[in-house]
């Protein structure tokens, strides 16, 4: 609780105590007690509402008439004059209690949201002249070395020059598994070092570091306002003056009309001061309800909560407007490589020839040895799958046959590894490989042994992601890729995507995108998901551009509207869920706040609702709406 809140709470409690005394005194017989109670009521009013009255007067001096201070002052002073002392004080008290809760709730939500984004490093241990110095992260220059101890947050992006460790990337990606890092690896700021001491060469200044970029992005996200927010701002502009005018009319017109009617009819009860007081009371009740605060606070708060909740899961949304638009997604266009597949090649299958006397392990070993001299990505994935050290003394005479494969002598035997053409040149009949991907046939001493299939791996959660999107009501899921048709269709088939455009050049992707944008309905939104590499124009063209694996890729963070920090396509459906939930909360708040206000306005006009109900309609509703808005934060 802040100092200001504590002070206000004390005033409220003191005022309440004096009010109780006043009410007790009023209940006692005798003239003296009547005066005493009046003085006590007045004292309670000053304690509780003094600030409000003061602000109202000061603001009128500034030319601001219709603010809530003025309205509350007018309503309660009016109640005093009409003779409802307890009500005047109680209404002011209740209003202050409500305001207090409102500030408390806003403070609390501010705190929980900032805690959520608590990735800002406080200091950096920089190595200067052989000793460690603790400085602000923005004082470290590029090329300097920093030391990060276990439990500390990495303050700047860089490359590890000494030490190995595992990093907690939770705050950035929402991923709970620690990430292993070795000497020479690039690391990003915002991660927490879990084990060893790391010495890191700084490659980016603080302002360009990942952590600054992310913080900037999240903080400025709520300034891009959603349609619902703009609607509320506009609404608030008209609501208050209209209600105030209604209140004025309500105070004057009905009694006047009654007077005229009475004047025409001699038998009727004459319009007395009491009738006027009754209508003025109803008008004052109107004034209390005229502040649009519940809406004005709770709607942006809901969006902010949604943005915060999403960023906790590693989904950075660049604006409330995008969060709102995600719920209207109609079609999703996905890039294949890097989005649905890992974009790295790995051994996916080992097939031995039926008549060859060779195990799968042996086949892989031979292939790995044969390719061990090559730098090609294919040979790297073979070596990775083999996983053991290569004993180079077993290899003689390695020779690369450009475009076709390699020819080496392993353990004194001639080994050929490569494509079908290489096998045919050696008069060897390879097995026909039906699967898509890159095939490496292996032959040893003139005998065909089998083949190894190397393919881009589909991400573990890709199929689940497509299912979840379909379940979320996405009507059209399209895959775009520059890859070969067979590979594309194979991947799409396994994931359950029916619409595929393959063999596209980067320019073709934009054209396809244009076509798809034309075909979709006017209200529905089209999402594009890519890995941010080479697809910036497509990201920009879509209604919402989503970049995957934002860690370390500046281009992606710049070009996209939504950045998914992890490599999981399933986060897309999650982002849509968060969007739906946030909008549900926003709608609930709008309907609830407006519903209660209009209801109480009608009841007040009819003379049924008291000023109590009006205060509830104002601050009570605001507090409930804020509490509801806070749900958006919890994913």
């Amino acid at each position, binding site marked *: 609780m802040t100092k*200001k809140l504590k002070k206000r709470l004390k005033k409220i409690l003191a005022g309440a105590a004096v009010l109780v005394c006043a009410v007790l005194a009023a209940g006692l017989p005798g003239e003296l007690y009547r005066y005493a109670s009046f003085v006590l009521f007045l004292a309670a009013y000053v304690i509780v509402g003094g600030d409000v009255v003061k602000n109202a007067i000061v603001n009128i001096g500034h030319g601001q008439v219709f603010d809530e201070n003025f309205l509350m002052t007018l309503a309660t002073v009016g109640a005093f004059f009409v003779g409802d002392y307890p009500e005047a004080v109680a209404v002011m008290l209740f209003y202050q209690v409500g305001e207090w809760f409102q*500030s408390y709730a806003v403070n609390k939500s501010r705190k929980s949201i900032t805690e959520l984004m608590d990735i800002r490093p406080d200091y950096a241990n920089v190595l200067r002249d052989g000793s460690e110095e603790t400085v602000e992260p923005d004082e470290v220059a590029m090329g300097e070395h920093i030391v990060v101890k276990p439990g500390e947050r990495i303050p700047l992006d860089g490359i590890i020059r000494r030490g190995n460790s595992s990093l907690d990337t939770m705050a950035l990606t929402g991923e709970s598994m620690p990430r292993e890092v070795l000497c020479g690896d690039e690391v990003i700021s915002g991660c927490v070092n879990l084990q060893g001491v790391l010495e890191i060469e700084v490659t980016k200044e603080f302002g360009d570091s990942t952590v600054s970029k992310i913080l900037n992005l999240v903080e*400025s996200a709520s300034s891009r306002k959603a349609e619902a927010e703009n609607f509320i701002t506009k609404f608030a502009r008209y609501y208050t003056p209209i209600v105030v005018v209604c209140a004025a009319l309500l105070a004057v017109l009905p009694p006047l009309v009654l007077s005229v009617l009475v004047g025409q009819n001699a038998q009727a009860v004459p319009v007395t001061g009491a009738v006027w007081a009754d209508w003025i009371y109803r008008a004052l009740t109107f004034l209390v309800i005229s502040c649009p605060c519940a809406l004005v606070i709770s709607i*942006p708060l809901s969006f902010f909560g949604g943005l915060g909740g999403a960023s906790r899961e590693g989904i950075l949304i660049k604006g409330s407007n995008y969060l709102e638009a995600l719920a209207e997604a109609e079609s999703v266009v996905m890039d294949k490589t890097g989005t649905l597949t890992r974009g790295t090649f790995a051994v996916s299958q080992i097939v031995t020839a039926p008549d060859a006397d060779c195990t799968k392990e042996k086949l892989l070993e031979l292939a790995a040895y044969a390719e061990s001299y090559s730098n090609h990505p294919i040979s790297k994935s073979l070596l990775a799958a083999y996983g053991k050290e290569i004993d180079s003394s077993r290899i003689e005479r390695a020779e690369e046959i450009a475009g076709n494969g390699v020819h080496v002598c392993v353990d004194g035997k001639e080994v050929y590894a490569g494509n079908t053409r290489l096998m045919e040149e050696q008069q060897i009949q390879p097995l026909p490989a039906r699967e898509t991907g890159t095939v490496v046939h292996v032959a040893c001493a003139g005998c065909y042994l089998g083949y190894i299939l190397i393919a881009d791996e589909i991400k573990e959660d890709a199929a689940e992601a497509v299912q979840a999107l379909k379940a979320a009501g996405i009507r059209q899921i399209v895959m775009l890729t520059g890859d070969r048709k067979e590979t594309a269709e194979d991947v799409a088939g396994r994931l359950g995507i029916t619409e595929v455009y393959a063999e596209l050049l980067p320019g073709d992707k934009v054209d396809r995108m244009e076509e798809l944008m034309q075909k979709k309905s006017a209200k529905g939104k089209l999402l594009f998901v890519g890995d941010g590499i080479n697809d910036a124009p497509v990201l920009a063209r879509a209604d919402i551009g989503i970049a995957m694996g934002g860690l370390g890729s500046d281009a992606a963070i710049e070009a996209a509207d939504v950045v998914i920090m992890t490599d999981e396509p399933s986060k897309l459906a999650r982002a849509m869920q968060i969007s739906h939930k946030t909008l549900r909360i926003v709608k609930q708040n709008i309907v609830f706040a407006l519903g209660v206000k209009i209801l109480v306005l009608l009841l007040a006009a009819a003379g049924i609702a008291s000023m109590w109900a009006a205060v509830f309609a104002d601050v009570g509703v605001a507090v409930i709406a804020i509490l509801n808005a806070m749900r958006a934060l919890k994913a």
Partner: protein
Amino acid sequence: MKKTYILEDLDCAHCAAKIETAVSRLDGVEKCTVTFLTQKLVIEAEEEKIPQITKEIKSIVKKTEPDVTVIEK
């Protein structure tokens, strides 16, 4: 040039909107956003007019919500 101010104890969202509108209209201010939740006021303005603008921002804030303290960042 971009400049950020912190509006400490900004409690009323409606006032935040009013401050935003008033500051946007100041001479030399190209763009102004007030974010209620982060209590930040960010302006894009002509550099040489910034001292004058800062003075005016303080007076606007004082008029709209007297409890708020403006801190330059």
